[in-house]
């Protein structure tokens, strides 16, 4: 029985993706092509960054639902600041500002969770409202389509450009490199630094972590600040590549993001989660959101499909665990 753990979420999700692609290829031979792949990659950038952030929190045994509000807040506020104060600053400055704003908001979550020990779900539900309410009340509600020049410049940076057989264009923005870089950075932190191992340790057994002298408060502070920073970055990338800053964007995406992470095998109870799984989960969600029609399912069934995938992806391991427990008792 110890051979291959076929019920591992990574394997399951990978299998579903392959099955999806086979079905899609059968009904549309053009599906398996570079443009489709690039489309998928482009659509996965923001979702991917947010998912990486959400995974770090899940690994530590917490849950964050406020990151979309952080992203929207950082994105819109940065755009407004740039527009009103210094419209000619280059994009790296804009990105740095958004990241800093995100980190600052994350620090608020961090203080409430790490210092005061409030339950993570409730705190972040609260800060979700606060951040979003503050943004829409005090910063603005009007979408900005005339972006500052720096952000416009960034949106024109393309890694890959091409023309489809039918004459239409496809392209992959350099923003994708940010996703890759952040995945590598997060992988390095989680697996190659003592800090990262402490995050896994806290997620696995918080009391034990405290006993061997891990500073749980400090580690949690780092986690929520890091997540905030990633969310801020994801927000500004979203606005730049979409070429519009809409303060109503992004919020509402949080459950889909968490769904992607959980599909990828991260446990809600903490301590377990891989970046490979998370990225596979994101890929599957993006596929379903964009290409469901290709395999003959009308796009109105998107929600049902994602919901069913979540139930299957989490239900199978849960069901197995329950049976194993009954057997072991």
């Amino acid at each position, binding site marked *: 029985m110890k051979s291959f753990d076929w019920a591992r979420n990574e394997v399951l999700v990978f299998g579903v993706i392959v099955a999806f692609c086979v079905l899609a290829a059968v009904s549309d031979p053009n599906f398996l092509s570079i443009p489709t792949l690039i489309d998928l990659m482009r659509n996965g950038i923001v979702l991917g960054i947010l998912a990486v952030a959400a995974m770090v929190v899940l690994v530590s045994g917490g849950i964050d639902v406020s990151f979309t509000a952080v992203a929207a807040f950082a994105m819109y506020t940065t755009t407004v600041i740039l527009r009103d104060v210094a419209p000619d600053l280059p994009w790296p400055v804009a990105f740095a500002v958004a990241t800093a704003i995100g980190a600052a908001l994350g620090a608020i979550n961090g203080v409430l969770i790490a210092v005061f020990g409030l339950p993570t779900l409730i705190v972040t539900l609260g800060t979700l409202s606060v951040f979003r309410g503050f943004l829409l009340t005090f910063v603005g509600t009007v979408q900005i389509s005339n972006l500052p020049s720096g952000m416009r410049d960034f949106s024109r940076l393309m890694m890959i450009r091409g023309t489809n057989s039918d004459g239409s264009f496809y392209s992959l923005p350099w923003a994708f490199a940010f996703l890759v870089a952040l995945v590598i950075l997060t992988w390095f932190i989680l697996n*190659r*630094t003592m800090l*990262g191992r402490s995050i896994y*340790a806290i997620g696995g057994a918080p009391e034990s972590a405290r006993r061997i002298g891990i500073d749980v408060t400090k580690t949690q502070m780092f986690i929520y600040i890091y997540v905030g920073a990633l969310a801020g970055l994801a927000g500004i990338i979203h606005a730049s590549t979409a070429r519009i800053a809409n303060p109503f964007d992004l919020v509402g995406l949080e459950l889909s993001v968490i769904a992607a992470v959980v599909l990828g095998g991260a446990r809600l109870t903490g301590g377990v989660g891989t970046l490979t799984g998370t990225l596979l989960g994101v890929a599957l969600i993006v596929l379903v959101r964009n290409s469901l029609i290709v395999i003959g399912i009308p796009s109105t069934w998107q929600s049902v499909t994602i919901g069913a995938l979540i139930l299957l992806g989490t239900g199978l391991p849960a069901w197995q665990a329950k049976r194993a427990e009954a057997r072991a008792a």
Partner: protein
Amino acid sequence: MTDTSAPLVTLEGVTKRYAAITALSEVDLTIRAGEAVCLAGENGSGKSTLIKVLVGVERPSAGRILFDGVPQTRLTPTAATRAGMQVIFQDFSLFPNLSVAENIAMTAERATGARLVHRRRARERAREVLDRIGVDLDLDARVERLPVAHKQLVAICRALAADARLIIMDEPTTALTEREVARLLDLIRRLKADGVAVLFVSHKLAEVLEVCEHVVVLRNGEKVADGPAETFDAASLTRAMTGRDVAETPPEPLDPSASDLLKVENLTKDGAFRDVSLTLRAGEVLGVAGLLGSGRTSLAKALFGLATPDSGRVTLDGTDVPLGDPIAAAGAGIGYVPEDRLTEGLFLEQSIARNIAVGRLEAHASGGVLNLRDLWEEAAEWLKRLSVKAPDPQAPVRSLSGGNQQRVVLARWMARQPRVLILNGPSVGVDVGSKAEIHAIISDLAARGLGVIVISDDLPELLGTCHRILVMKAGVITDEVAGGEGITEDDLSHRLAS
């Protein structure tokens, strides 16, 4: 190590007060390098406070702590760790989601102050420690998949990797089988030879006496006995811990005409127990002696429907009891008092009354509507009958002592008037006084015609309460002996372990 060198650890007149309660009162203790010391005491005797003071978690209200003869004025957990004090908690405090290597090396790696993970160095460190104690474990295995004894080894290795000079082991033998205890003792001897000191902290220490130089007994926060280990045996240790000899209440002799009540035929559960058959008669107290891992708990759970056997049959008064369904088992008249009272038995924050009534809410309700007065009155009645010292049935059950909590669980089942009651470790974590009273309840139940099954690794308890004792080893019932005077503890213990 010669006695002229300064002892590794010295406590002088250590006192710890919390508000009005004195948890420790002028305790002296000396531990030398390479020495094993037993710290014995009942629950609440001040053992855990002493550990906390020793590792800097709590500051003593009075007295001195010296490491290597140097007084420690402001002892912090970090300073204690740096001085080589390592505690192995009963739950081992490991990280179930991480690998063996990482668990072993983490404390030591953190101590180097490195910010990056040195995988090779960590693995080498783990390998080195495993070699040092002569144990072979898969470095990459996830700790959650290891058996208990291996988890303990990982915890010991972690302490050693962090340059432990004193390893404090909290209740080290509770979860181990006899063979594993023997292996642990071997390991302790090796550590001692290496110059590492060990402090055993437990209320069940007879089995580690042989590797100890020294025994210290605490009672109500005071040191009541202190001496070379050779001068103690299990009985004198108990007497010192409790301050009295424990009188057992053997059950009334079984009526020879008593009818068969519960019949278990060829019950088998893969990986847990095999081909178990037994008959329990009305009014009989049947003991099941087995070490942890012998299948005793699985068997109990299977009889109560908490686990589903693969094959076999259970009948009560000739009627089949459906397997794998606790509600059906309870309905048929079987009750189960679980081993782990705190997580399996009680709703700690809920009231005593609710904890008692939860077993038969339907009886207090008509059409689903509860008669709360009826529920409270019955609870109060039970508290009186079982002489639970509780201020108020409305108080949370958490506020009760271990012995009284156990009586609440008993009351819950007795209120249902079961035919058969299965008690798994009925006196685990109960002070000796309450223990005797719980035994009296057991023999009273039997006298009223119930069939009682007592599962325990506490042999004197089984010998003192049971008519008959079944010996369970590796999932199989290997032996049957008469209780009472029929057999000595030593004899039974040999049959268990051989």
